[in-house]
């Protein structure tokens, strides 16, 4: 062990938490920098920026990650100048800081790996530039506004602080090690005169060895302000008595600058006029929220998944118990079961909420992508983010990021034009790209809208013919043409660019989205732009379902998609061979599909079937079923390999009776029923009626082996 700070075990235990927190701070820094591009003078944002960098440095110091501390220190110095208004945030500095932020991210990611020579060299080059940027400010400030700093500071810019600290008795119990803190403080500058109040430590007989009785006094010569010292003690501040005073060069002006005692929320002790700038250097304003996460508990995602899995089993078991209770016809038992069911539902809802995260974090990443990509392509693009607070399942958020990234890049590369092209087309030079999210009937709708050139249908069509995706000469509807770009092996870029023509086609994007039980549709107006709509389920675990029966088979519709139910009305529909037809719904024709015929179910037709009216996007259609079995909390199990290719079905669920029900994917069912006219809809999947047959309802086939 290099120096006995925290034990290796503890480091290993806490490091993931540090990395995750540091990554959040790094993301916040990036976001703030990008926000500042539009508003470079915003002091609040500049302050928040500084605090983020400072937090990263502070916690990295606690873990002895010297590379992170060393590098971040330079970034922080520059940010300090920006915050103090001694330097203006120019686009060049912004870019430099963004690059530096990337380095911090890499350093954090490689916290436990050895440094490489190239990385160190690259860092040094950046440090030089950071220094140059900071140095320019210092000389400018010195020549332009000699009165700006009323505190006479030694020429070298070094300040002298006297620090008095008594650690709280619970310091050790809170897992903090004063040695690590002192070591960190030592890294802030030149530490001397460290004096340990030995007499504060009681003799063995009266010592509680786990209570901390350490108190120190030392001098620190450092270029930073008193807030850096305060920050070093941030983790123990709650129960530590810390006094920092600045020793001014003139003996008459020795002033106490800042005192941060037990309740650090109080502003700095009123200081004599001369020391005012230092005293206000560390505003603890309420807007510090960016770096604050007070009131939150970090829980490992696995633990949460475990709870949700158990909950899934509980929901199934509860449904089984309810059914048995109903069979007994004992009223009190049924009521008791109903109560349990309600409670389970409550727990389910709140547990699932725990997994919900706003999509804004993912969206925010695109600011940088759009900025860099647009610059690289010589385009001028304004990104608008709407509905960042829309929440969805963490697993969905994580898995949608890549497809989104691809679509955004695609829009930048193929959709939006260069300023010259735009002006020539009579459009403003700056292109617009909008990323929005909202809830819509139980799913989340993400839209990527650009005002670029749109999709050129003739080119798409040519390509589709060329690639044999369509039979030569066949011209499908406009909508179908634009959606051809999601076909496997399709790419319209004439020159393959580094950004989008990487062979990862739009078909991969589509299949990624479909794996999330989502769908993607593109619409486009030539010359006006394109709109890509991605629909995703809110969660991957449990849905509210509507259970129906067709013969002996059970199907579940997502309840959110069910508009209404017409009981005992199916006799009137005249159906074709695939089970498609129309019924009259209050004077309007409603297309319907018969599950029995569609899936060639081996069951006799009933006299009075029912129609479940469902909604898929803007469309509505009916599904003919034999019986309506009511609402059902559905724990989604994946389809096994054998049934994985079943079209129109997204998963399975085990009912309380042990029967397996298939969960209907409304969108896919709609497409399936709309017919096999569109060869792309079939995609890689088999398309013959035989393979559509859910031949067996054996639970062993559906779901994973249990």
């Amino acid at each position, binding site marked *: 062990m290099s120096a*006995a700070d925290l034990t290796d075990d503890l480091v290993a235990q806490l490091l993931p938490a540090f990395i995750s927190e540091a990554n959040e701070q790094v993301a916040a820094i990036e976001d703030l920098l990008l926000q500042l591009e539009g508003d470079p003078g915003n002091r609040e944002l500049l302050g928040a920026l500084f605090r983020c960098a400072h937090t990263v440095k502070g916690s990295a110091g606690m873990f002895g990650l010297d590379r992170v501390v060393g590098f971040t220190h330079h970034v922080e110095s520059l940010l300090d100048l920006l915050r103090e208004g001694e330097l203006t945030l120019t686009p060049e500095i912004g870019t430099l800081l963004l690059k530096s932020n990337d380095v911090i991210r890499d350093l954090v990611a490689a916290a436990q790996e050895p440094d490489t020579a190239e990385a160190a060299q690259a860092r040094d080059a950046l440090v030089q530039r950071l220094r140059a940027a900071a140095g320019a400010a210092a000389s400018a400030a010195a020549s332009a506004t000699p009165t700006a700093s009323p505190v006479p500071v030694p020429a070298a810019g070094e300040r002298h602080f006297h620090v008095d600290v008594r650690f709280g008795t619970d310091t050790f119990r809170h897992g903090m*090690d004063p040695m690590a803190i002192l070591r960190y403080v030592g890294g802030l500058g030149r530490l001397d005169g460290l004096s340990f109040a*030995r007499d504060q*430590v009681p003799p*063995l007989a009266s*010592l509680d*060895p786990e209570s*901390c009785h350490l108190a120190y006094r030392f001098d620190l010569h450092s270029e930073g302000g008193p807030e850096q010292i305060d920050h070093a003690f941030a983790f123990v501040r709650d129960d530590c008595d810390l006094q920092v005073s600045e020793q001014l060069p003139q003996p008459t002006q020795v002033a106490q600058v800042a005192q941060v005692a037990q309740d650090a929320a109080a502003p700095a002790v009123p200081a004599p006029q001369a020391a005012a700038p230092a005293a206000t250097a560390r505003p603890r304003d309420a807007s510090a929220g960016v770096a604050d996460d007070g009131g939150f508990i970090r829980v490992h995602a696995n633990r949460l998944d475990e709870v949700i899995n158990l909950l899934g089993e509980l929901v199934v078991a509860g449904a089984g118990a309810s059914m048995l209770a109903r069979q007994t016809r004992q009223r009190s038992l049924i009521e008791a079961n109903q109560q349990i069911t309600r409670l389970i539902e409550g727990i389910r809802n709140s547990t699932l909420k725990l997994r919900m995260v706003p999509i804004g974090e993912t969206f925010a990443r695109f600011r940088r992508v759009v900025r860099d990509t647009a610059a690289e392509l010589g385009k001028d693009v304004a990104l608008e983010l709407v509905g960042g607070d829309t929440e969805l399942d963490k697993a969905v958020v994580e898995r949608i990021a890549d497809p989104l990234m691809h679509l955004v890049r695609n829009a930048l590369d193929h959709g939006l034009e260069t300023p010259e092209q735009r002006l020539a087309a009579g459009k403003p030079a700056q292109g617009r790209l909008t990323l929005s999210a909202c809830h819509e009937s139980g799913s989340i709708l993400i839209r990527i809208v650009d005002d670029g050139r749109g999709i050129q249908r003739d080119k798409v069509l040519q390509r589709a013919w060329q690639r044999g995706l369509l039979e030569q000469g066949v011209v499908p509807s406009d909508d179908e043409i634009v959606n051809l770009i999601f076909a496997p092996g399709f790419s319209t870029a004439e020159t393959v660019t580094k950004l989008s023509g990487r062979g990862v086609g739009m078909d991969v994007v589509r299949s990624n989205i479909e794996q999330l039980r989502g769908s993607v549709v593109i619409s486009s107006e030539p010359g006006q732009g394109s709109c890509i709509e991605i629909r995703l389920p809110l969660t991957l675990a449990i849905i509210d379902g509507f259970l129906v029966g067709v013969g002996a088979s059970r199907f579940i519709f997502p309840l959110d998609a069910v508009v209404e139910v017409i009981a005992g009305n199916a006799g009137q529909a005249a159906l074709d061979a695939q089970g498609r037809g129309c019924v009259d719904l209050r004077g309007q024709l409603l297309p319907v599909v018969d599950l029995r015929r569609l899936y060639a179910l081996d069951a006799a037709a009933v006299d009075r079937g029912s129609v479940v009216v469902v909604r898929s996007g803007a469309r509505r259609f009916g599904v003919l079923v034999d019986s309506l079995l009511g609402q059902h909390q559905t724990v989604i199990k994946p389809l096994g390999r054998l049934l994985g290719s079943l079209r129109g079905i997204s998963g399975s669920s085990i009912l309380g009776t042990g029967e397996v029900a298939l969960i209907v994917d409304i969108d896919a069912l709609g497409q399936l029923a709309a017919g096999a006219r569109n060869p792309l809809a079939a995609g890689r999947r088999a398309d013959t009626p035989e393979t559509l047959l859910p031949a067996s309802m054996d639970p062993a086939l559906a779901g994973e082996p249990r």
Partner: protein
Amino acid sequence: MPEPNVLPPELTIYTVGEWHPRLLDWVGSGPEADAVDDTLQLDAAAVTEVDAAGLQLLVSLANTLGQQLRPLALLRPSQPLVDACMQLGAAFLLDAAVPTETHA
């Protein structure tokens, strides 16, 4: 001269609770009746991990001995222990340190 007491490899917040009573024993047993000098010798060569809590325990031990006017000698203090003493301003613990093996 009696065998010196041996400090454990780990002197941290995780072990101070366990070692506190032993240190008390060492102090309480007092010097051997026939001892020429009453220095409490501790073999500190094995210490590989020490944190502020561990160091505080040693300081407390030194303070206790100080009340009895007995010196504390750390025999062959390991590098981690020396570093910790320096970092925590407790170099006085090393005052009577015996850097190399001098006892039989």
